[in-house]
């Protein structure tokens, strides 16, 4: 029961997708079922995102309540979670039951602050706290790339040499001065990089990798549907 039922559920929800693909949606009952199941999938999938939040809150509250070393930082995490989450969940208008109670206490003009709209607290925190940090993490990569290039891009063998030569060539090609430099070797050199390196070799390799990865993903999907692969089920 504990494993059989999930296997059957996985099989059926997958099968509907597969069979639905081959049927005409206007002509068959299954076409509509497919659409509905997909919708269910997005809804149930949304809940899995919330699981992470629950785990995070649990882990951090434990540290805080036991006053483990550095618990103050975990408290900050908890405060940040709620500061962002709570305003986003408050209803925007007085239409619903909770909303009508809420807006009898606070002015209705505050409504815009809640939810996830353009003027909300949530949107503000995203734009002015979270995104600068996200952009900074990306920006830090520039430093790391430089140091990785220095330490690791060594012409140790043919493969490494090809990698670093192409990288240098593309970096040159993408900046004004480099492009001018490349033209010294012939007016069409930048165009050749475009067509042979980017559209030629690069595209071919991407295609080979795409095909291989797709085969892997398809065979895994097949095994999940058939209940052969169950790593995802975790502990019973």
């Amino acid at each position, binding site marked *: 029961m504990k494993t059989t039922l999930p296997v059957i559920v996985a099989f059926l929800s997958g099968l509907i997708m597969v069979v639905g693909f081959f049927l005409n949606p206007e002509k068959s009952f299954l076409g509509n079922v497919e659409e509905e199941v997909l*919708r*269910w999938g997005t809804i149930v999938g949304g809940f899995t995102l919330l699981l992470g939040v629950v785990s995070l809150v649990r882990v951090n509250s434990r540290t805080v309540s036991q006053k483990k070393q550095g618990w103050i930082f975990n408290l900050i995490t908890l405060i940040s979670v709620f500061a962002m989450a709570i305003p986003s969940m408050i209803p925007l208008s007085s239409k619903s039951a909770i909303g009508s109670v809420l807006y009898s206490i606070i002015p209705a003009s505050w409504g815009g602050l809640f939810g996830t709209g353009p003027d909300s607290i949530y949107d503000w925190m995203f734009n002015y706290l979270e995104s600068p940090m996200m*952009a*900074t993490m990306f*920006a830090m990569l520039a430093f790391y790339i430089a140091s990785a290039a220095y330490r690791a891009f060594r012409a140790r063998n043919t493969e490494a040499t090809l990698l670093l030569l192409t990288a240098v060539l593309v970096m040159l090609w993408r900046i004004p001065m480099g492009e001018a430099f490349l033209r010294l070797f012939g007016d069409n050199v930048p165009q050749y990089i475009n*067509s042979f390196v980017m559209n030629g*070799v690069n595209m071919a390799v991407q295609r080979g990798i795409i095909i*291989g990865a797709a085969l892997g993903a398809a065979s895994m999907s097949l095994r999940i549907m058939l209940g052969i692969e169950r790593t995802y089920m975790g502990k019973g």
Partner: protein
Amino acid sequence: MTFFAQFQIWLGAFLVLALFSFLYKDNPFYKLAEHVYAGLSAGYYVGLVWQSVIIQQLVDPMFDDGQWWLIFPGLLGTLMFARFFAKWSWVSRISLAFVMGNTAGVFLISQLHGLILPQTMSTMLSLNPKNGFAATLLALVTVVGVISTLIYFYFSKEHIGVLGGTARVGIWFIMISFGAHFGYTVMARISLLIGQVQFLLFDWGGSIKQIF
């Protein structure tokens, strides 16, 4: 600039600098920013799922459009939380299995239909020299690249003989492609660094000038 606009800039600048400080050394400011970030991102998911999934896709259609049957995905979603109760955690497998099966079904077909077949087809290029030298050369590069890459990822035989030779060409092609990717990514990351530095120099710097 209003006080609030100044405040926004200073807050942003503090967080940016706190994260950048990790480049020198791990320190309490980085640790602070790291923990704020972890919390905010979790809160972000709550808002996203609450508004765009629970309200827009579940509650509104159920109450406004009378789509009562959405109670089932709602229940399945709620069952996910059974995971936190040891005795009932197996129940959450049903919801998970639903999502996994659903994804697997979509994937099985989309990978075969959307990727493998069309990509295989577009590799069937004409190598006829009458298409012109450049076009033929490009076609040849593509064909050799795709096939040798596939051969490199063939595991059922040792890579010796013809197979080994082809695989070797494959790895060369692969390295060239990775180099190109590296070059492009370098460009993207530097641009974002430039963006952050522009923020610090001009926005925050401007604010500092105005204050002092």
